[in-house]
């Protein structure tokens, strides 16, 4: 933790007042609690409006953060090229509150793809530049959580604007960007100094939550050297036993905060004659890599299933130096075939000698 950061106590009521202030500049999204089909609670983001207040769940929201950076289907070009290619030259300002550490860290994977070359995705960049991220420490990890296995923690360390740590009757709020410090300075009346015991309460929660996540994952002593493991076991039969229950629905990919694949397609336009649409796509689909003439480099389901692992844990480290998995557990939670990435790695680990 950076000790120079601006830090304060913020009551629940004052946090709502802060969101009121931020809401004057753009849309504010907050987690809301909804009962799911198994009787538990899920926390999808909703646009903050009259009567809706921030729900601190202690657990990550349902939607991956990427949904706010590039929507499932969006217009990206009009042609023949009109005078002004896009009417909305700058994206609207948005505030996302309640972002979990596993989602915040996913932006590193997305930035690497969308920002870091000569072909910057201007739509993604606009969203990134115009989004205020208010993150929150976790306290209630679930069985599907494995941030600690992915090398992360259940609380954010860097890259947020403001971070919330739940303590009695409010939050410790910490500024992680210049923009956030400004927000805190401009609304100084909402904040009060943090007490030592409040800081220790935060540190205790962080340690305790980390311990809980580690306890949840104690049976999955994942190889520390996952890319090496995959290199060795690319062709092993183990893949076939795990893909057996995959129904190719794509839930693991669409819910994944780092999956970014898409397809461009063209259709009739509204303001210009034609338009180009960018839509999420998924590598488990047979049509994803299918070429004219019918050929495909990943013809079999096993090959498509395996590709997700190779891409995230072998190719990402080779291209960018880090894995494209944050341990959010959505792929485990959403899988109708009960496929658990941790079990796949455990099985690969068990048949491999000497890769730790």
């Amino acid at each position, binding site marked *: 933790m950076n000790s120079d950061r601006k830090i304060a106590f913020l009551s629940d009521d004052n946090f709502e007042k802060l969101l009121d202030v931020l809401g004057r500049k753009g849309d504010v999204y907050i987690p809301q609690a909804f009962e799911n089909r198994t009787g538990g609670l899920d926390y999808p983001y909703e646009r903050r409006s009259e009567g809706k207040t921030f729900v601190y769940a202690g657990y990550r929201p349902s939607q991956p953060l990427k949904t706010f950076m590039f929507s499932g289907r969006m217009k990206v070009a009009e*042609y023949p090229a009109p005078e002004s290619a*896009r009417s909305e030259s700058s994206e609207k300002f948005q505030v996302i509150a309640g972002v979990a550490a596993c989602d915040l860290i996913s932006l590193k994977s997305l930035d690497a793809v969308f920002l870091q070359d000569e072909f910057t995705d201007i739509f993604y960049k606009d969203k990134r530049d115009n989004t205020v991220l208010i993150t929150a420490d976790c306290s209630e990890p679930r069985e599907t959580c494995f941030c600690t296995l992915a090398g992360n923690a259940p609380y954010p360390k860097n890259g947020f604007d403001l971070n919330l740590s739940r303590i009695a009757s409010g939050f410790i709020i910490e500024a992680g960007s210049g923009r956030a410090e400004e927000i805190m300075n401009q609304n100084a009346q909402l904040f009060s100094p943090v007490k030592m015991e409040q800081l220790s309460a935060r540190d205790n929660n962080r340690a305790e939550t980390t311990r809980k996540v580690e306890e949840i994952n104690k049976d999955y002593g994942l190889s520390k050297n996952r890319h090496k493991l995959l290199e060795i076991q690319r062709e092993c039969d183990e893949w076939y036993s795990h893909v057996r229950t995959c129904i190719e629905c794509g839930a693991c990919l669409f819910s994944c905060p780092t999956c970014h694949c898409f397809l*461009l397609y063209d259709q009739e336009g509204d303001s210009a004659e034609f338009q180009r649409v960018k839509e999420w*796509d998924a590598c488990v689909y047979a049509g994803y890599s299918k070429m*004219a003439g019918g050929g495909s480099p990943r013809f079999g389901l096993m*090959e498509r299933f395996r590709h997700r692992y190779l891409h995230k844990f072998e190719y990402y480290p080779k291209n960018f130096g880090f894995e494209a998995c944050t341990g959010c557990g959505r792929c485990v939670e959403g899988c109708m075939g009960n496929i658990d990435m941790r079990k796949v790695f455990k099985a690969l680990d068990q048949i491999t000698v000497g890769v730790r």
Partner: protein
Amino acid sequence: MSNSQNPYAPLNGIVEQVIVETPTIKTLMVRPDTQIPFRAGQFMQLTVPGVGEAPFTPSSSPNRVELLDFTILDTGTVTHKLHNLNKGDRVGLRGPFGKGYPVDKLKGKEVLVVGGGVGLAPLRSLLYVLFDEIAQFKRVSIKYGARSPQDLVYKNSFEKWSSIDNVDFTVTVDGAGPEWKGNTGVVTTILDNIDIKISDSIAVVCGPEIMLKFVTLKLIDIGYKAEQIYLSMNRRMSCGTGKCGRCNIGPYYLCKDGPDMNYALIKDYPNVFGM
């Protein structure tokens, strides 16, 4: 925000001429509204308005940017629509994408160019560059194969290419009637007993996936090392910029790191010649 900053937006171009190369292959000569400099082997995404895009490497010389040739086999949705275009029709262009052929690495070498079918199209762009500076290369050997005599592209150029000093040009067809006096057999058959100092050679290969596979096996068999082989790989592409995900071989994206890949880089990854 102008279209030029938007990597997904096409520039306008007009079809200036259509050349029928074979019963299934046409060359579209496209004049872009604004000139688009490219290196041999780099590719463009060609848009049929309202239909979609497909990737093609210009078959014309990179030294002629005002008019781009695209030699296209009628095989899928977009290519079929491209075949229906006429002089004066509008197309869209994005690019150029990819790295292009490693021309500098070919200098001072015996360059072996192997083409299969419409695969000679991207290679023609390279050949123009090689021919322009032919003294820079020890020799250029071109081995070209197609299914039948009527499937050969650029037939009118063969004689001219063969007559260039330091250029050796051999054609074969898989099968032909009695009027065909040339070689028959798949392209690998004209790689047997080639008069090339292999240790001093680089091979550049473009063609359908199955041809790439067997030419690679043949080249390895006759003594080429994986590092000496460049393959124009085939994958479905969409964005052209390494973002949409689908054209990878291992960690490499053909649109960004290729489409011509050194075989040594890709050979150990899964489904290199997936079909």
